[in-house]
Each structure stands twice: as C-alpha cells, then as structure tokens.
C-alpha cells in the first residue's frame, strides 16, 4: 500500500476524528483529540492491523503536552499525535488495546507527570528511589542545578 492510498483509507475510515499529514515518504502523522485516543488506536488496530507500537514520545511544547504514539506497519510509520492541556495532564491508557504499551506509559508518567488513567500497573519507576516527588525532568520549566562536587583529597 502506498502512502497516498493509506492516507485515503485512513481518512475515509476515521473521518473527522483525525487530521492526517505526511511530511516525508513512509511517515504519516495523525492528529487526534485526547478523548479519542483509545478509540482511534483500537480502530487502526482492528481495521488496519497496526499492532506494533514502537514507543510513545512526550513533548513539552510550553503550552501543552504532546504525546506521539509511534506505530509501525510493514510499509509505513504511523504516528498518532494528541495534545493534553498542561493544567489537567491526564490521558487514557492504551495498554488494554496494545499490551506492549505499558512500559512507555510508565515512562511518560515519570518524566512528564502526565497521569495515565486505567494503566494496569502504574507504579512510578523511571527515576531513582530518592527522587523527590513532583519533579518531572523532561518538562521544559524543570531545570537541574548541579550540586557542588567533592574534590577528593581537597578541602570541603
């Protein structure tokens, strides 16, 4: 299936729920609303056989969080994008649909502080155990201040 054919089919199937763009060969970007994410993922899994989730990327755009679900099928890369408001960082889990997604959802929870609702096993995990609560390193407004280093054999 070529890119154009797939776009046409997806557009016909998903209708107004998704905006589809293709910035380069074999790369498709779908934009869906946060509320629709589970529906769309279920639909593309069932109708198009998209079962392989490569990863989920989070981006802090400054005004909102953007989540990208990178799926791959033999010929194309399908990237489903959704935006979540910064004030209410919540998104539904797609783990019931794609079991392999759980790892990436946990990562998102830890690094961005986005609450993934309905995640089967949502223990906080990414960061060290002595990590302070409420600190999310990949948010743009989070800055790391390096503590003073010890100079071995020196003063202090």
């Amino acid at each position, binding site marked *: 299936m070529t890119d154009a054919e797939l776009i046409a089919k997806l557009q016909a199937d998903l209708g107004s729920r998704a905006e589809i763009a293709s*910035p*380069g060969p*074999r*790369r498709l970007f779908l934009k869906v609303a946060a509320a629709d994410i589970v529906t769309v993922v279920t639909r593309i899994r069932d109708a198009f056989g998209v*079962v*392989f*989730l*490569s*990863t989920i*990327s*989070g*981006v*802090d755009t400054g005004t909102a969080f953007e989540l*990208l679900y*990178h799926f*791959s099928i*033999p*010929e194309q*890369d399908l*990237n489903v994008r959704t935006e979540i408001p910064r004030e209410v960082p919540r998104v539904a889990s797609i783990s019931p649909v*794609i*079991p*392999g997604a*759980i*790892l*990436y959802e*946990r*990562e998102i929870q*830890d*690094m961005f502080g986005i609450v993934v609702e309905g995640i089967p*096993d949502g*223990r*906080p*995990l*990414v*960061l*060290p*155990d002595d990590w302070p609560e409420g600190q999310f*390193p*990949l948010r743009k407004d989070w800055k*790391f201040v390096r503590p003073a280093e010890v100079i071995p054999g020196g003063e202090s």
Partner: protein
Amino acid sequence: MSFQIPIGPQHPALKEPISLRMTVEGEVITDADIRLGYNHRGIEKLAEERNWIQNIYLMERICGICSHSHATCYVQAVERLMELVPPKRGLYIRYLVSELERVHSHLLWLGVAGHEAGFDSFFMYTWRDREIVMDLLEMVSGNRVHYAINTVGGVRRDLDEGQKAKILEGVAMLRKRSVYYFKIGASEPSFVARIAGVGLLTKEQAVALCAVGPTARASGWDRDVRKEDPYAVYDELEWEVATADTCDVLGRVVVRVKELLQSYNMIEQMVQGLPAGDITVKAPRKAKPGETVSRYEAPRGENIHYIKSNGTEKPERLKVRAPTLANYAATVVMLKNGFIADIPLIFAAIDPCICCAERSVTLVDGRSGEESIVRTSDLRRRALARPANALVKGKAVWPF
C-alpha cells in the same frame, strides 16, 4: 517452598547494572520482575542543551556496543530535518561501518552466550576473532569502540585502496573461522542441550509484546527495518532477512549466525561497489522547524529516534527508543517456568543493552523485603498486594 533470588544490580552474568528478581520454587522460576534505573543517566534532557553536532557524540555514548547505531539513527533524522542529501560514497562508508559493527556485536554476543552457559572456550575463541573486526573498525574510523565516523551530511573519514583490501581480507578470514566455530558449537552436545527449548516465545507472543530484532526473528517474524523501511544503501544490496522458527535461545543463536554471514556478504558488496565522489556535504548550523522519525536496524533490533526541531541550533526534543527496551516485556514471559540456570541465558539471549534502554527509561520494578530500593510510598501498597514476598531467611545478607 518458594523464595526470591535477586539477580543484580551487580551480577557477574550481567555486565551492566540491572536488577532481576526471580521468585523460584526449588530450581524453577515462577515469577520474574525487572527493575531498571541503575543506568539512567538522563541523556534526553542533556540532548536538549547541546547543539546538533555535539549531540552526535552524546548519542554515540548512549551505548558502547551499538554506538554507531544511535549516532547513525540520529544523523539520519537530522539530515532529513535539514533536507541534506549525503553523497553516495559517504553513505556507503557509513553503512559499511554499520555492518562491521553488527559483526562485532554479534560475535560479542555469541561469546557472551557461551560464557553464560559456562562454555568459556567458545567465549575465548569468538572474542579472539572479534579482535579482527575491531582492528578493521579501528583502521576505518581510528577508534575501537566509539567510532565517531558520522557527521551531519556524511562521514568524516575516507577509505583508500589499501584499507579496502584489508577489509576484504579480514572478512574472508572471519567467514572461514565463523563457519568452522559454529559447526563446532552446533555439535557440542552439552552446549546445544543447554540452549535448545529454553526461553520459548511464540510468534503470537512476540507480536503482542512488540518484540524486535533477532528475538522477534527467531520466533519466525521476519521483521527487519532494513527491508521494511530501506534506508540509504540497503535497497541496493543483495541480502535476505534471517529468521528461525524454533522460538528458543537456539533459534536466536541461529538467527545471529545467519545475520553474521549476511553481513559479511554485505560488507563485501559495499567495499567492491564503493562509488567515487565526496564523502560529505556541508551542513547548516540550524535546522528548520519540524519533526521527524528515524528508524534503524541496530544489531539488537529496531532503533527509533524522534526529533523535533524549533529552528534553533539545538533540538527541542530528542526521543530515543532502544531495541532492548522493546524486548523486556517478552523477556519476562520467557523467564517464567524456566530454571535458575537458564536466567542468564534467556536474559542474554535478547542481547540486553541496558545502557541503551535506560538512557531515560525504566520499567517493572522488583525489589521488596528489607531492601528498600523502592519508594516507601510504594512499599506499603506492594506489601499488601503480594504477601508471599517474604524471604525464607529474613536475616540474609545479600552480596549484591
């Protein structure tokens, strides 16, 4: 009687820090849990503070074994963002190094598999041969491990005739030796008895759990980014995807051996068909705003970089998904109902590259009992959830 044994974070079978916690009944594993986070360095945050060129060197240091994979995947993405077309000769040299790296990584893995099975002679022999490919890499790039041969828009060093001849010579030698050793390895009954039928992962499970690379291919799923999404030179070469259908550790060995032989062929084709011309084009300092996804078949499986640019010298967001991470879910399935003795083998069979997987990520957590490496808020909930976690010997002092 069931009790838990911790494997790691410092364990001789794992050259990298990771913690596996196995619940065992006698010698049989009933449950497995993986806790990462020991190797989390925060590279994705660092990458946002460095410019496009500096990031190449940071990406290389995500992992020492597949350093070229990450750098190449990143450079591919940046070139797409900057709309650069590297010259053909540059691409050939870049992917020549890729295949040499695959050879070194697979030889390394075969040796490690032998070592995990207690077959140290096999380990010594494959690592001796690995030195040949290390020498070739050093000759091509000037470095044994972090090759630093990529740059945005091409590669940094050219090949001359003498080097080409040496590569061909080295590959011919390696092919001869590999074939011989694998015959021996395949006919050593105690080794085969250890790896056949161990760590089963059916094709359905591999698909459901999103396994990648040789792990998926050994379950009969012919997924290879080099074929699916042929980047750069791979559609000009003659090769085929290596698969096996035994779904066990033996199959993973077979897949890697087949890939080695394929790589030797590809290296020869690339050296012989090396086009003339420049090796690099000039790259701008800033990339246009935009985003791209770059895929690359690393020795361990599919490698994905997602890059978003905001038009400055630095990336807005750089996301790395290393192949090992994708295979962890499958590993937990493979470990269940195995023997203690099989843990290192099964775990090694996905060729875990923990530093790759952990440049930012972690997953399933597994510690409990008096060793609180879990958060205290979490401890209570887990204590309630799994009362069977108590240790048989409460006073035991763990060496690790």
